[in-house]
């Protein structure tokens, strides 16, 4: 296999950075200063990183409740994200959104929202808007496996297929919707990619823990969409390591087994990249350690920024309800 060394290095850097940021959030969460729900992407970084690395800055991304990784992978400002989670005025949404409502327009991250499937039609709409205007941006819509159970998912895909819109649907299948496994939500043996094919959309699946594979599939999909050849649906299997919402591990609850978790952990998306870089002598251990150190200082600085930032003032409570 012909590996592009620069791409691999970049994927590793981005995945490691997201991992370290989210682990820091998990560590600090018990301080009770981040007073909003957080849905961590730890274990799922490869999908966000692989897909967003195939995009241009002006391309659009819309996310869901678990979107720290999407935001960061698209290049979203770290300080503004942490400040947002801390409820600060300097946050990307001025403290009005929190972890579930991230935005960074400078890099095309148009927003995230936690109502399952709800940003999918909006992503189709941005693709529709750009195509009406004759612009050549591609839009990516990130969502989980449960989103494919919502009615609006089908409405959105139908329209994207009808109009051949430049939108990539990225389904991160982490096997659970909160505590409910796929087995209680979807019939056994039926694969969502087959349903999507039936709607008339090219539909592929891949290893969601292999950032390089994700990147290569996304690159092809983006090329197709950008050339006006219609949407692509990509399903990636992966696994969320921590609880649905919050900083902890929750395998003790019994809704999934420790053994299942360990199996997935063996295929840690960050570690898979790490091993590949070492095996191919692209990076050495020392360079990787330095990289991690640099990222950690960036994170520490961002945490200080977030903590020291002022809260929004009372006068801001009812500001920005209506646009002028």
């Amino acid at each position, binding site marked *: 296999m012909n590996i592009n060394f620069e791409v691999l290095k970049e994927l590793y850097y981005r995945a490691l950075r997201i991992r370290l940021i989210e682990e820091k959030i998990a560590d600090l969460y018990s301080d009770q200063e981040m007073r909003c729900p957080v849905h961590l992407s730890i274990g799922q970084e490869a999908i966000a990183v692989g897909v967003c690395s195939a995009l241009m800055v002006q391309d659009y991304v819309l996310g869901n409740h678990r979107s720290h990784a999407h935001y960061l992978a698209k290049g979203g400002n770290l300080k503004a994200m942490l400040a947002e989670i801390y409820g600060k005025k300097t946050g990307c*949404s001025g403290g009005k*959104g929190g972890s579930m409502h991230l935005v960074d327009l400078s890099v095309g991250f148009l927003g995230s929202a936690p109502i399952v499937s709800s940003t999918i039609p909006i992503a189709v709409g941005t693709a*529709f*808007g750009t195509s009406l205007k004759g612009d050549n941006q591609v839009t990516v819509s990130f969502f989980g496996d449960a989103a494919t159970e919502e009615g*609006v998912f089908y409405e959105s895909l139908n329209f994207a297929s009808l109009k051949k819109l430049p939108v990539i649907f990225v389904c991160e299948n982490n096997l659970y919707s909160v505590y409910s496994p796929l087995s209680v939500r979807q019939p056994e043996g039926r694969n969502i990619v087959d349903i999507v094919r039936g709607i008339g959309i090219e539909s592929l699946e891949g290893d969601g823990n292999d950032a390089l594979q994700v990147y290569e599939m996304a690159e092809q999909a983006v090329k197709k969409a950008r050339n006006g050849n219609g949407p692509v649906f990509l399903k990636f299997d992966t696994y969320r390591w921590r609880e649905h919402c919050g900083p902890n591990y929750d395998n003790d609850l019994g809704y999934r087994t420790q053994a299942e978790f360990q199996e997935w952990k063996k295929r840690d998306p960050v570690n898979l990249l790490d091993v590949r870089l070492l095996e191919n002598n692209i990076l050495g251990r020392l360079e990787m350690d330095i990289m991690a150190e640099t990222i950690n200082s960036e994170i520490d600085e961002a945490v200080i920024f977030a903590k020291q930032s002022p809260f929004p003032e009372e006068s801001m409570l009812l500001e920005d*309800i209506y646009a002028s």
Partner: protein
Amino acid sequence: MDREIKYSQALNEAVDLSMAKDPSVYIMGLGVPDPKGIFGTTSGLQQKYGVNRVMDMPCAENGMTGVAIGSALVGMRPIMTHQRTDFALLALEQLVNQAANWHYMFGGKMNVPLVVRMIVGRGWGQGPQHSQSIQSWFAHIPGLKVVMPTTPYDAKGLLISSIEDNNPVIFIEHRWLYNISGTVPEEYYQVPLGKARIAKEGKDVTIASVSYMTLEAMRAAEMLATKGISAEIIDIRSLKPLDSETIVKSVKKTGRLVVADTGWLSGGISAEIIAKVTEQAFSQLKCPPGRIALPDGPTPTSQELSKYYYPRAIHIASSILKMLGHSPENIKETETNIPFDVPDTTFKGPF
């Protein structure tokens, strides 16, 4: 130049002129380019502006509302049309969770300039799911604006203002207003959102009315005039933002208030208006305010039952007579040959 046109034509002109002026405006909805053109309000537009800007859509109200929102985020100004408000209920998720919140929840960084046209049906057996008038739901939601024009002049001017507005606007039309005619300028003009209209000046009682009920209020005022009672009529026009200032000012003058709504009584916009007035002008009220609204039940289909369901001018006039200590028997409804389930004799159904 001013001329007389119908309410439906005024709506058509508003969209037409807006599309001519601003290339980012587009309209979509089930049946928009079809031979009936949403009761004429979209007729001829596709021929003029093409299939991309005047489009039919899949039967997917919620998804397509999301599509409209997304397109608005990247610079388009969508108008979405529902043939009945009842169908728009499928899109509540996108309207309430997304469109209404988007500006606020991202700290004012993005706007959703979206107009959603809905039509309240009435009569000819529209029944429980083709006639619901649920403007108070929308008016409850921060981030949405809610407009209900009564006259052709306001229909055009308010629709233009709604399209120009940088927020999601719920634009509620009434089927029984489509055929009424009024003076409308040919040119592009705005009627500001958030301003009530004094439809008729008077001194004894204020009738604040919503949409079609303004016509009934005008008829009631004529009945009352024969008894020497002078009613002031405020056409509310904009439910959110609500122009309570104009209503309160009128009540301070007349000392009495009746609110006439096209929706249900309990939890309706009439309650909100009365609350605002009592908060701001309690001492000027000479008697308790009154409400004329639909009884708290689903819309019956039978033409016979709809006669008892929908309040009319006589009900407004009677309540005001009682308020003033007169016997309501003093007033009689003028006999007409118009059945109760149609707006006028030209209306032959089916919807």
